[in-house]
């Protein structure tokens, strides 16, 4: 009896020890998660917090040592929205330029990309793989390496300071991605759909417009978002090709602030935040749609 009781006592003690070990491990892993989560939050937010902090400073308060706004002021945001600083005279014009370039790049990347992938993937044109390879090659060439010859060519064409030179460059770099995603997505649509339409006498443009485009809607949204963000976030080509104050875009104007010694940092950060709002809103709104083919979101910026 006593041995059994001792065994039971022993096993219950072992059990308790095992339980406490499990509890300790659980506790440790929970603490680890909390610590790592906090580190991730601080790390991700710091530069963005800095942006907000400085934008909320009143004019003379930028050069101080505090780490939270003492007297939060929206003066600088108001200054940007009403173009109240001489640096910001053309802000709305520049905002419109960014929008225009973004809209045109999106439209042409979708149009050219969908036509191409329709011809390659659905109509199976001869040597279509050559076109796919050209697109793939474009995708893996760093865009910034082509900037100097591109600039020279645009000057020869007399297109410097013209938004269409930027649109051309960005369409050339956004379309390859569009072609991949469309071809990939198109594989999920049975070819028989097209075949039966053909037998019914539909011409290729009719199939493209009435069948292909509607079925591709989710991919169009994903690629459209990608192209819009790419154009909105791009800097180098816009900087090189657009130099006058009224033709430049927001990122170029933002960078102009930096070249001055007496930068009005609060206005600059307010501009940076207003400029960042549309892409952040689009990103979070279309997050799920974009997940269809995780976007490169401006990797080729």
């Amino acid at each position, binding site marked *: 009896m006593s041995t059994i009781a001792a065994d039971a006592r022993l096993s219950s003690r072992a059990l308790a020890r095992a339980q406490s070990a499990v509890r300790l491990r659980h506790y440790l892993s929970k603490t680890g998660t909390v610590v790592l989560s906090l580190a*991730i939050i601080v790390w991700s937010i710091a530069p963005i917090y800095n942006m907000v902090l400085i934008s909320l400073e009143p004019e003379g308060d930028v050069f101080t040592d505090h780490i939270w706004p003492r007297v939060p002021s929206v003066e600088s945001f108001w200054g940007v929205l009403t173009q109240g600083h001489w640096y910001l005279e053309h802000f709305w014009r520049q905002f419109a330029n960014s929008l225009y370039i973004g809209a045109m790049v999106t439209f042409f990347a979708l*149009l050219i990309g969908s036509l191409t992938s329709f011809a390659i993937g659905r109509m199976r044109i001869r040597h279509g793989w050559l076109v796919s390879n050209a697109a793939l090659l474009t995708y893996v*060439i760093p865009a910034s390496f*082509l900037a100097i010859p591109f600039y020279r060519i645009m000057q020869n064409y007399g297109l410097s300071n013209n938004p269409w030179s930027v649109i051309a460059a960005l*369409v050339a770099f956004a379309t390859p991605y569009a072609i991949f995603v469309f071809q990939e997505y198109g594989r999920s649509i049975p070819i028989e759909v097209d075949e039966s339409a053909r037998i019914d006498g539909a*011409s290729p443009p009719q199939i493209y417009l009435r069948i292909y485009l509607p079925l591709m809607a989710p991919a169009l949204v994903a690629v459209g978002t990608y192209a819009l963000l790419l154009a909105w976030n791009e800097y*180098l080509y816009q900087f090189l090709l657009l130099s006058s104050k009224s033709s430049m875009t927001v990122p170029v104007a*933002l960078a102009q602030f930096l070249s001055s010694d007496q930068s009005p940092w609060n206005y600059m950060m307010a501009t940076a935040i207003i400029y960042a709002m549309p892409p952040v809103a689009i990103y979070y709104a279309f997050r799920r749609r974009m997940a269809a083919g995780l976007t490169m979101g401006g990797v080729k*910026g």
Partner: protein
Amino acid sequence: MNSVSAVDVSRPALHRRTLSRSLRGSLKGGEYTWALAFVVPYLVVFVTFVAYPVVYGLWMGSDASLYRELFADPIYQSTVVNTILYLALGVNVKMFLALLLSGFFMRPGRWMKALLLIFVLPWAVPQISTFISIHWMLNGEWGFLNNVLYKFFHIEGPSWLNDRWMALGAVIVSHIWKWTPFWTLILLAGRMAIPLEIRDTARVDGATGLKGFVHITFPLLANLYLICTLLSTIFLLGDFNAVNFVSGGGPANSTHVLATLGIRDAFEIAHPRLGVAAVMSALPLVIPLVIVLMRKLRTTEVQL
């Protein structure tokens, strides 16, 4: 889930060729004209805005004396060192962090989803905004970082951007900050694509934790990880913004990389051919990378 369907394409490709041959007969004259008309816009864009600039660039940089001038330039020599460091650290630290963090974000729970939303913020906010902010954060006198160091630890922080190695380090860290979320999402999608049965079976067989990672997860992710590393290498090689806005190539032109040096030579000292030569000197690295990547991207269907 189609993000990492590792499909062996060699057989379907063969299949497709015979299929297209059989279809060509059925692609009637009029339809063939239409198909051509649909491809022409892209071909025009490719030839005018990609192929022509490539050829033009090759022609601009074809003079051997340019390279003699370039290699003798001490700024170019330090640029090469910077580029190598930027590539080696920027790509690998970032990809390794992304690999670890993608495992962390596999944990279940609503908290993880919320954390992921915060985590992708650096990627969602435009580069120019955040890099300018980081530039000011690192200001020696009034920067946020030194203010925090002083407030909490009473440490007088240095002028981060006035020293070559600290400035280069700042650029590398900024790059890692900006792009880790993106690659984490890609690797997270890759991990999610591993069938649940494989993970469950492995767990039952005792392959948990590190063991499970080494023997199950990583072998299945290895190809994706390799492609991501190569892609990230080539994207980083062409990266202009991080250097241009965080350090501006300074102090005294000591933190340039090839992409920014090319633009500086072409537009600041108005010697476009030298700028092209600076960029072209990366070709011995770019060409093999492009070849390997094109083969990899064609045969494995990684959708990014």
